[in-house]
Structure formats: C-alpha cells, structure tokens
C-alpha cells in the first residue's frame, strides 16, 4: 500500500499499463515534455519517447479521430482532452464514429480507446474550465463513461478502461487531483466497469453521487448523522454501464433517494438516475426521488462569489438531505 493523490494514481495507472502493453499510446495537447497541464502524464514522455507519448496540435477532433483510426489499426490510444470543456469540437467523432463503428459493422470493427478529460468546477475556471459534460455522453449507446472518486478507483478503473474493447470516456474531477489522497495497493489490480460502490451504509436516505459529489456527499452525511439522519452513499463510479442492482437495492432498502450532481440540473445525468429509480423502485419509495444539482445557467462564473453560488457544497447537500428525510 502507498498513499497517492488522485492524479498520482492516474499517472501510475497510465505508466504501468504502458509498460505492460506496448500498444498503449498517449496523445494530446502538452502531454509530452510538459507532462500535461495538470501533470497527469508527467514523466511518460521521458520514459516512453516520442512514439508513444505524442504532443498533438491544438485540434480535438483530430485527437479523437486519429485515436479511432489508431485503435482500428491495433493500438490502444489514451487521448487526453486538456479540459472537458474542450471536448465539444470532437463531439462528432465521438458520437458519430467512436460510439457507432462496432454497431454499424455488426461487430466487425472495434474501437478500444480511452478519452481522459479533467472536468468540474470550484477551481476558478469560469465558464470554460469548469464544465461537467458527462450527460452528453452517457446518453450515447456505444460509449462507456467512468468517473472515479478515489485514488484506488482512479487507478483500477483506468486500467479496466484501457483494457476495455470499447471507447471509454474517463472524467477526472480537477478539484480532486491533489486534494484527495488514499491508499493504493502496490501490485496490479483492476476495478471493473459497471459496478457501483457503497461508500457509507445507511438506512434512511440513499444519496447517489459520483466524482467530487461523493466526497461532498460523505461530508454531508456526517453533518446530518448528528441530527439522527442515517444516509447511505452510493458512488456510481461507472455512469454507463450503470450498476442498477446496487442503485435500486439501496433505494429499496432506504425508501428515499437523493441524486447529487454538479452539472446543471435540467437534463443532466441525474435525471436518468431519478427516472430509473422512480420507475423501478416506485413501490418502495416513501418520499419523492429528489435531485440536488447545479443551477441552470450556462456554466460556472469566474468571480469567486458567483462560483460559490454555483457550486454544490456539503452544506447544500445536507440541506437537501434534511428536506427529503423530513418528508
């Protein structure tokens, strides 16, 4: 066991997979000498050289499109999009191509690739360095979407994503990069896609979250525990495929479900979770399936007062838990 920050765990996962499998290559803006703007790829260029750590031009569609091609021709590219906010120019390549090649060829073509992108707010990133973009991709059959919340998971899920035979979007909350630490085993391990984790057992309310909201949710759960509200915290980890069993099992037990997500509320990923719970756990509900999410404005303002207003916090989540628990 070693203690690692989230970003160290990602860097370890990348370099270990690159050592294990010579077909794994890393591409993206500034991933080479600079080691990425967050240093997620620091040291990789020195170890693996120009051929496997490729500093690309500033062109996201190209990064994704050539990764698709490279995947068709035997590599396992791990593309970095510098900020999740800048994934949009690659939207067509991801949605029309990466997600569909397998289906449209009856399984003849596969696209084993990972797109890593730092997402999320609370870092003075303003409108274009703070976005949560998962909902655009969780809606798309053919894609997998993963959001780790611990260093252990980050490394284990990244390994599984690289080894997966389908395109995986791997979103890393940038506020967690250095603020979150945790134990990571020294040997090789993986965390399978499609399995949620119960981070805290509880009987009264199920709080469903992922990424930074797991940390906030656990804090919120502690806050209300003193008031006698017993919260179960489900960390989805893998947004698509979704672990329905764990999700529904928890809600059927507690009878109350609160979904927390940082993205703006309307049409966000949490809407699907709420809809599934509302439909499939109806008989067990003794309170409305509730959501606590970002406000419906076009992304986060820069000024710290406005940013604080936008961001969820343990306190805001605790308030929502109290309202639901009191129902």
């Amino acid at each position: 066991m070693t203690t690692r920050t989230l970003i160290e765990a990602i860097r370890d996962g990348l370099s270990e997979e690159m050592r294990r499998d010579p077909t794994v290559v890393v591409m993206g803006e500034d991933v080479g000498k600079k080691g990425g703007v967050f240093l997620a790829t620091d040291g990789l260029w020195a170890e693996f050289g120009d051929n496997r750590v490729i500093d690309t031009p500033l062109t996201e569609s190209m990064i994704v499109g050539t990764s698709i091609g490279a995947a068709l021709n035997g590599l396992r590219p791990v593309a970095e999009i510098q900020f999740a906010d800048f994934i949009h120019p690659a939207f067509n390549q991801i949605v029309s191509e990466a997600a569909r090649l397998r289906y449209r060829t009856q399984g003849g073509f596969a696209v084993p690739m990972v797109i890593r992108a730092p997402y999320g707010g609370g870092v003075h990133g303003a409108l274009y360095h703070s976005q949560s973009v998962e909902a655009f991709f969780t809606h798309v059959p053919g894609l997998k979407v993963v959001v780790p919340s611990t260093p252990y998971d980050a490394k284990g899920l990244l390994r599984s994503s690289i080894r997966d035979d389908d395109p995986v979007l791997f979103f890393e909350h940038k506020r967690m990069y250095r603020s979150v630490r945790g134990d990571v085993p020294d040997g090789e391990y993986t965390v399978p896609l499609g399995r949620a984790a119960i981070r805290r057992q509880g009987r009264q309310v199920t709080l469903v979250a992922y990424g930074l909201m797991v940390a906030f949710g656990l804090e919120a759960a502690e806050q209300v525990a003193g008031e006698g509200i017993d919260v179960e915290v489900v960390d989805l980890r893998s947004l698509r495929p979704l672990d329905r069993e764990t999700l529904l099992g928890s809600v059927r037990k507690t009878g109350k479900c609160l979904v927390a997500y940082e993205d703006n509320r309307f049409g966000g990923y949490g809407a699907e979770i709420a809809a599934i719970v509302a439909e499939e756990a109806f008989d067990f509900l003794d309170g409305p399936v509730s959501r606590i999410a970002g406000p419906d404005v076009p992304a986060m303002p820069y000024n710290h007062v406005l940013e604080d207003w936008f961001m969820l916090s343990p306190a805001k989540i605790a308030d929502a838990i109290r309202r639901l628990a009191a129902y």
Partner: protein
Amino acid sequence: MTVTGDGRNTATSPLAASAGLTDDDLLAMYRTVLLSRAIDERMWVLNRAGKAPFVISGQGHEGAQVGLAWPLRRGYDWIAPFYRSITTCLAFGMTARDLMLAQFAKASDVSSGGRQMPGHYGSMERHIVSVSSPVATQILHAVGIALASRIKGEDAVSVAIMGEGSSNQGDVHEGLNFAAIHRLPFILVIENNGYAISVPAEKELSVKDVASRASGYGVPGVIVDGTDVLACYRAGRDAVERARSGGGPTLIEAKVTRLTAHSSDDQQTKYRSEDDLAQGRAHDPLPIFREQLRDAGVLTDELEASMADEIRSIVEDATTFAEGEPDAEPSTALDHVYGDATGAEPAPPWHPSAGARSEGPAA
C-alpha cells in the same frame, strides 16, 4: 478471371508499358470499371422497380477510382472510402455479391448486416474502413491508421477518399496538418465532380483546385483527369511509393463527373442545365478508357463480348443471391453495441428476448 494486378506474365503493349503495367493489368482494370458500372446501373433498376429504397452510386467516378486504387496492396494497405467508392471497393477486393447484399441490406451483408444505408461499405478483413454518412470524418481515421502503422513499424499506406464538397470540412484541415507534421504514410484522394448535391463548386470551394490547398500543409498536390485511368494510376503509384518510403502524405485531386443525380432522392435537372449534363456525359470515363484500350490493341471485340457475358452473369448472380438472402432477425438488433454484453442497457419490452427483465413498471 480475377480482378487483380499481381503480374501474371503476359503481353505488354506500349500503352501498358508506359505505366509499367501488363496488358492483363489493363484488362483487369477495365473489367473492374465495367463491373462497377453494371452493378451500379442494376442498383438504379432495382430502385425504380421498388426493390431498393435508396441508391447512391459512383457513375462517372470509376476511372479515377480504379486507377488510384490499383497501386495499393490489397488487404495490407488501408482505405477509408466514401459512398461513391464502389469501384474502389471492388478494386480492393469486395465482390459483386458483397455490394448487392449491402444494396438489399440483408443479414449477410458483410459491411453492416443491413444496418447501414446502401453504399456504406466496410470490411475489417479487407482493410476497408466502414463508410459512415457524416462526410470527411474518415480522413482522421485514415491518418490515425497511418500513425499506428508508423508506430508499429509497418509500411502500410493509408488512403482517405472523399468529394470536393466534403474537403471543406474542418476535419480535413486538422487531418492534413497532423499527417504532414509527422510525414505519415497517408494519401488524401479528392474526387472532384463539381457539385455537393446541388451546390456548384464555385459556391462550396473557394479555389478551383482542391490540390492547390496541399502546399499550405507542405505536401505535394497533384491534379489528375479522372477519365485518364493511367494518369490516375501513375499519380497513385507515385504517392504510394512516396508514402511507403517515408516521404509523407500526398493530396491527389481527380477531376471527375457525376453522371447520375446525387442519389435516388435527388432530381438533378432542377439545378443542372442540359448543357452541363451533356458536358458531364462527354467525360464519362468508361467509353474513354474503352477507346484507349481498343486503340492500343489491348481490348478486342472478342474480349469485349466475353467480358460482357461474364459481367452480366456476375451481376445476375449477385442480384439473385442477395435478393434471396434473409433479413436480419429482430432478435439480433441489440447485438454489438458493446464488445461484451455487460455494457448493454435492458432490452425494450417488445424485443424478442425481453421479458426476463421487465422494462415496464415492476407491477
């Protein structure tokens, strides 16, 4: 007789010699054009007969396609073609049956099992990247393939093919830039037929020749007459040699003509004058190539007759075969969303295999 250029030892006319080919090569190329045209025409017949709701075809593009595809190593090099690439795909190893199965969208269609529209060919085995409808995306796939060849230390060449209208998409800029920076073994072929559906070149392309964009990426740009099959062959061969030997990408623009409407959904007389259409017909590569081969003494009456017979029966066979094949079972419609079933969402309630897991309320 197979559609191949793998050098059986035969006569070499001066015409063939001028391109470093044998007469058999020329005949094989001609036969590919003929076969392509015959299949293509049959598709329109099937469409008019109500047997195929959609046709998109390559009539007028065949000369460029056969010439440019010929220098490639089939199944080793890679192509990322577009919806008019019927001749290219034949030249790269697809069969008449393969194309007709796509036309009828049958379960055994090798390209997509009937999932894609006709004309969207693809085969991993043959290194033909599956055609998709959004134009120009394939340039990046081809560039990525070339990058992977380079990284793996292989000398395969990768070719993307599209129309001049599509060449204005942003992906083309990004792809050429990246391929040129790394001098990848990549070729971009533009089949310029002067129209993007109804929009004439003057309104979709700011320069007369797409090839004049090549210098902006530091790569050679070559213009060829798509009715001159051997000129196309030579341009393709030079570009393939350059790419294979580490000389980097080439942009080749073939001037072609679109002999049909854009697709079976289009009425081109609404936006093209009779004059324009007549000019197009005068640039049909098929009779031009035919005359060239006859003049060179490579093509004889006898050969023409036997080829015609052969092609008629191939098309007949392909049509009957494909029409008789079964449609896909609805039960297969959920297959191949992911490589493993664990990624899949529950089936809809009407799916043949549903029921085990209810999609409706857990009543």
